[in-house]
C-alpha cells in the first residue's frame, strides 16, 4: 500500500491511452462482413422471388417496394460494414490491452493484464475459409467488459493469446 500513496503524480506524465496507435483489422474482415451481408440479401431475394411465383394474390407494388428496399439495404449494409471495418483497432501495451470498435457508437475498452481471467481464440466456419480469427478476452466484470477483438489473422491471434497467457502466469507466480 505505502508504495502507492504518492500525491505528486502529474497527470500529464502518465502514459495516455488515447494517444496510442491502434492497429486496424485486416481487409479480409471487411470482405467477410460483405459476404455475410450478401448471403443475407440473397436469402431475402430468394424469398421475394418465391412469393412472386407462388401467386398468392399479393399486389405487385408490394414487390416493387420490397425490391427497392432490398437495393437500399445492400448499399446500407456495405456502407456500415466499411465504417465498422475502419473503426476497429486494438493495441497492446506493457500493462494493458486497448480495443476500439463502432462508428455510430464508438466504444473504447481498456483491460489491464492483471484483471484478465482468461483468453480464447475462436474461428467460425467462415473465418476458417477466409483465414480470420477472433480473440476473446474475459474479465471478472462480466459481459460489459469482456471484449472480442475481431479481424485478426489466425497467427496474430495466437501470438497475442500466448503473450497474454504468459503474462498472466508470470503474475500469478509472483503473487
Amino acid at each position, binding site marked *: 500500500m505505502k508504495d502507492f500513496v504518492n500525491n505528486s503524480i502529474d497527470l500529464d506524465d502518465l502514459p495516455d491511452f488515447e494517444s496510442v496507435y491502434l492497429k486496424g483489422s485486416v481487409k479480409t474482415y471487411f470482405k467477410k462482413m460483405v459476404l455475410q451481408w450478401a448471403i443475407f440479401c440473397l436469402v431475402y431475394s430468394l424469398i421475394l422471388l418465391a412469393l412472386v411465383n407462388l401467386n398468392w394474390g399479393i399486389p405487385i407494388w408490394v414487390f416493387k417496394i420490397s425490391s427497392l428496399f432490398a437495393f437500399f439495404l445492400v448499399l446500407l449494409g456495405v456502407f456500415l460494414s466499411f465504417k465498422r471495418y475502419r473503426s476497429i483497432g486494438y493495441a497492446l501495451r506493457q500493462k494493458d490491452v486497448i480495443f476500439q470498435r463502432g462508428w455510430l457508437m464508438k466504444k473504447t475498452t481498456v483491460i489491464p493484464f492483471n484483471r484478465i481471467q482468461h483468453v480464447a481464440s475462436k474461428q467460425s466456419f467462415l473465418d476458417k475459409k477466409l483465414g480470420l480469427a477472433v480473440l476473446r478476452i474475459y474479465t471478472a466484470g*462480466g459481459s460489459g*467488459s469482456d471484449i472480442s477483438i475481431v479481424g485478426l489473422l489466425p497467427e496474430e491471434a495466437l501470438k497475442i493469446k500466448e503473450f497474454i497467457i504468459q503474462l498472466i502466469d508470470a503474475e500469478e507466480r509472483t503473487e
Partner: protein
Amino acid sequence: MPKKEQNKLFAIPQNQNKLGILFVFLYSLYKFTRGLIAIFLYSALTQKLSNYWFYVTLGLSLLFLIVLVFSYLSYKNFKFHIDYKNYRFVLKQGVFSTNTLDISLQRIQQVYVKRSIIHRIIGVCSLVVESAGSSDKEIEIKALSEDKALALQQELLALKAEESSVNKELSNDLLKEDLNENDFEQAEDSLLKNNVEWTYKLGLKKLLLLGLTSNYFRGLGLIIVFISTVYGQFSQFVDDNAYWKGAEEYLEKEYTSVFEITLVLVLSFFILFGLSILVSIIETILKYFELKITKKKESLEVEMGLKTNTKWSLNPNRVQIVTHSSNPLQSRFDLHRLQLALIGSDDQVKKNSLIIPGLTLNKLLQIQNFLFSVKLEKGEFVRMNPIWLVKRLVIISLLTGGAFFLNYFVGWFRIELLALILIPVGFILLILQIFIFQRSKLAITPNFIIKSEGVWFKKRKYIELFKIQAISVHEPIFLRKRELVHITFHTAAGDLRFNYLPKSYCAQLNYLLYRVESSQQAWM
C-alpha cells in the same frame, strides 16, 4: 492425535436433523397447495366436483402418502461431510438416483444461515453454500439445528481461510501437516473467543419510522403488480365486459364537469397514497425485521427478515461497490441506508446486493471504514456537460407539445382534461431534470471513484480503485463534435457509468489505469 479428531466434527457423512423429514413434507405440501389452489377454489365455487368427493379424497390421501415417502427418502439419502484431507465439501443427495456434489473449499464464496416461516415453526434452519463455478453454484442443506448450522458455517469459513493461506505460504506437502495442526488451533481459538467488537440492532420503533419514510413509489408499484396479478387470475372466470360497460356509462352520465373529474382524481390519488404508505411499511417490516449487525474482528455479520431470516457473513474483499443513500426525511431521523454490491457467481447484480437500512450515520461510517482498505478522501467533483440538460428540456417540451398536437387531430380527450394532467406533469419533470443535473457528480480521488446522484433519494456510490476490472469510453456520433464522452467503470459486481463528460477528463483515466496496473492488492 485425539485432539485433532475432536476438531473434525464433520468428517463422517451425516444426515440432516430428523426434523428435515417434516420440513420437506411441509414444504412440498405447501408447493402443491399453491399450485392446486386455483382449481380447488374454482371447483368449490361452481360445485362441479361435489359428485366425485370420494375420488377426490382418495387422490388427496394418495398424494399425501407419496409426499411422505418422498420426504423420508430425500432425508435418508441426503448426506454431507467435509473431506479434511483434500479440503472438499462433499454432498450426496437424490431420492431415487444418487447425486454426489464435491466442492473445493477454496471456491466457496459465501456461507449463510437462512430461516423461512416453515423453518421457524419447526425450529430448524438451513445453510446455504455459494461457490464460484459454472454449474451448481448454490447448495442448500435444508434442515439443521441452529447450533450445528453455525458450527458448520464457522468450520467451512475457517477451513477456506486456512487453505488459501496454506496455498499461499507453502506448497511443500511435508510441511503442510505441521502447519495444519497450528492452524486448527488458531481457528479454534478464534472460535472460542468469538471476538465480537460491537453489535447493532434495529428496534421495531425505528423500523416503523423507516417504513414511514421510505420510497412510496415502491409501495405503489407493489399495489399495481398485485392488482394486475389478481385481475389476470380471475378475469378468466368473471365476465368483466358488463362491469366495464356499467362503469363507462356511469362515468359519462355523472361526471361531466372538470371540477368533478379533478375531485375524483385527487381523491383516488389520496387513497392510493395512503395504501402505498401502508404497503411500504409492511414490506419494510417483512424484509428487515430484527435486523442485527455483529462486527467481529475480521468479518461483519448481518441478520434480518421476518418471512425468510437470512444471515450473512461479510468479508470486505467481496464487496465491490458501496452505496450510501438517504432521503431528507430519513436523514433528519438519522436513518441511513447502505447497499453493498457483492461478487456473484454470475451476471445477476441485483441478487448479489445486500441492503442494510436504518443505520445511524455513525454506524454507517464505522462499517464503511471496515469495508474500505484506506480512509475515504475528499475529491474534486465534475458535473455532466449542460448539453445534457438542454437535451432533456427539449425532449420533454417536444413530448408535451406533441401530445397536444396529436390530441387536436385524434380528439380522444377533452383539452381541459389533457391540460390538467400534462401541464403539471411536464412542469414537474422539467424541474426534476434541473435537480438531477445538479446532483449528478463524479470524482476520482487518489483511492476512490465517487459518484453522487438522486434528487429525493440521495445516493453516493464508492468504488475503490483497485477493484476496477476494466474501463470503457463511449463516443456516440452525435456527441463527437462537442468532444463529449460517456465513461463506464466495470467491477466484478456491476458497472458504474457517468455520461456527458468532457473528453479531457480521460486524463483522469490514465491515473486510474496506472493505479490498477501497479496494484498488488487482491481485488477479491
